[in-house]
């Protein structure tokens, strides 16, 4: 059974442990600005929302990549960017309607969530279960994914 990151803004306190854990896992240093999961702040409502790639079925990023730099990890379903192939053209960053694949000026390539190979650090770091890694078919799975993907007319996953 494949698992997915389930993000629940209602439980997020904005502590940014996930951003710390992600950047530490990926870069070996605490650098939240390079985290692949981001916590957005809604100061009007006093709310926070963690957000990252849903590993969507449409995979617009993967389809549009000119050089086959994005592939599916068969074990986890994650869409992975191969740094040695990515030329940094950024066409994936405009194609992804969720804005979750980003260009990194320091590397000249793009970066996105890869589910840490099936054991995501953000979920382990989150103290409030605002981020959990659970069965994809579990109840309530991914409002974000269900709603967002269906609202896009170009989504026609079969």
């Amino acid at each position, binding site marked *: 059974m494949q698992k997915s990151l389930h993000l629940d803004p209602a439980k997020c306190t904005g502590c940014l442990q996930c951003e710390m854990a992600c950047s530490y896992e990926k870069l070996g240093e605490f650098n939240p600005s390079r985290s692949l999961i981001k916590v957005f702040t809604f100061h009007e409502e006093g709310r926070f*929302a963690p*957000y990252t790639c849903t590993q969507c079925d449409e995979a617009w990023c993967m389809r549009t990549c000119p050089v086959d730099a994005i592939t599916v990890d068969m074990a986890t379903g994650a869409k992975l960017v191969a740094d040695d192939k990515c030329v940094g053209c950024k066409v994936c960053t*405009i194609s992804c309607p969720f*804005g979750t694949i*980003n260009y990194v000026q320091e590397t000249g390539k793009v970066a996105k969530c890869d589910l840490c190979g099936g054991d995501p650090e953000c979920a382990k770091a989150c103290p409030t279960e605002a981020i959990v890694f659970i069965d994809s078919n579990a109840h309530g799975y991914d409002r974000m994914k269900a709603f967002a993907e269906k609202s896009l*007319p170009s989504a*026609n996953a079969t």
Partner: protein
Amino acid sequence: MRHIIIGAGPCGVVAAETLRKANPMADITLIGDEPVPPYSRMAIPYLLIENIGEEGTYLRSTEHYEKQNINYLNHRVSSVDADEKVLTLDDGSTLLYDKLLIASGSHPISPPIEGIDLPNVHSCWTLDDARQIAAIAKQGSNVVLMGAGFIGCIILEALVKRGVNLSVIEMGSRMVPRMLDEKAGGLLEKWCIEKGVNVLTSTKITAIKESGDAMEVETDGGKILKADLVISATGVRSNIAFLEGSGIDVKAGVVVDNKLQTNIANIYAAGDVAQAKDFSTGEYEVQAIQPTATDHGRIAALNMAGQSVEHHGSVNMNVLDTLGLISHSFGLWMGVEGGDSVEIYNPDAYKYMNLRFGIDEEEDVLVGASTLGMTQHIGVVRGLIESKIHLKEWKERLMQDPTRIMEAYLSSTQELDNVI
């Protein structure tokens, strides 16, 4: 069922793969006429700066097609007989099809000026062009780039990185006039000039003349520029000539319906060759961009496989990296009459952002955007435009601070307010 795809660019390759996935038993033939494995034109700039070799431009590994049981033929289709459902190839042989996809892409066009046929005047469109450009565009050589449209600007950076003395000549009043407005285009021009590029806007090349080993490029402003190489990037046209007499309806490109089918049943068209619906205007246009080519390829293939998938129109969008200054445009980036818009303009920091909203019942719907000097979460602009999300109170918030597009999107899709 014999499925044939004409054209092995990104559109044709995605279509072949989608067909294979939808129908493991289908008979799929992919025909491409370039003497190299299927590759991406988009990767050419990275080949020119020697970030990758030629194999790095290939769309897939060379074994991929065999593994997917896709029959790849290196031939040119010379004609289509839609009554008999038969194609004729360049060697005179014929192929029968049941379903046909035309994904033959586009080709560059050049203005009819004196000297345009000289040997060192090239387009930058194919791998072969890239090889010829690489052979001349060396450290210190004089290069004139004709056209600062999207493709011109895409290769500009590669040329500068090769160390050439670069002049860019654009007829329009600013760089990338079909992607950026006066302010953003003006900033881009200033940026290029600061990086040592000689940019001449509102200027036309009137003649290219041989002069010793090199050339002289004359402009309508009376300037004469020395050039070892002239690169013409003045526009593209769909590859439709081989369809003449086939009965397939062509205008600027092959005209298709909302299933990407042509006027003839079982013949589809997709990618740079297709004149298909633009999401924002509802008009049928040739977009000639990679994301549209691959989205088309997928939708056309699903319809060929017998599914019924509607093409709702593609959002026209571009991203450009010009010597480190990144720009984007999406949808109706110039706005709609009577629609609200909000702008950030900080010329000293080379930052620009413009969000455009619709009118009437779409007055709180994002319909277009352009940016300069931004990169994070930019794709969500496509998401907001394409899902036509009513931003409600977030419209006002964006009018105050347009950089909060991601928050606006999350708030509208995750119904944050309701979960409290």
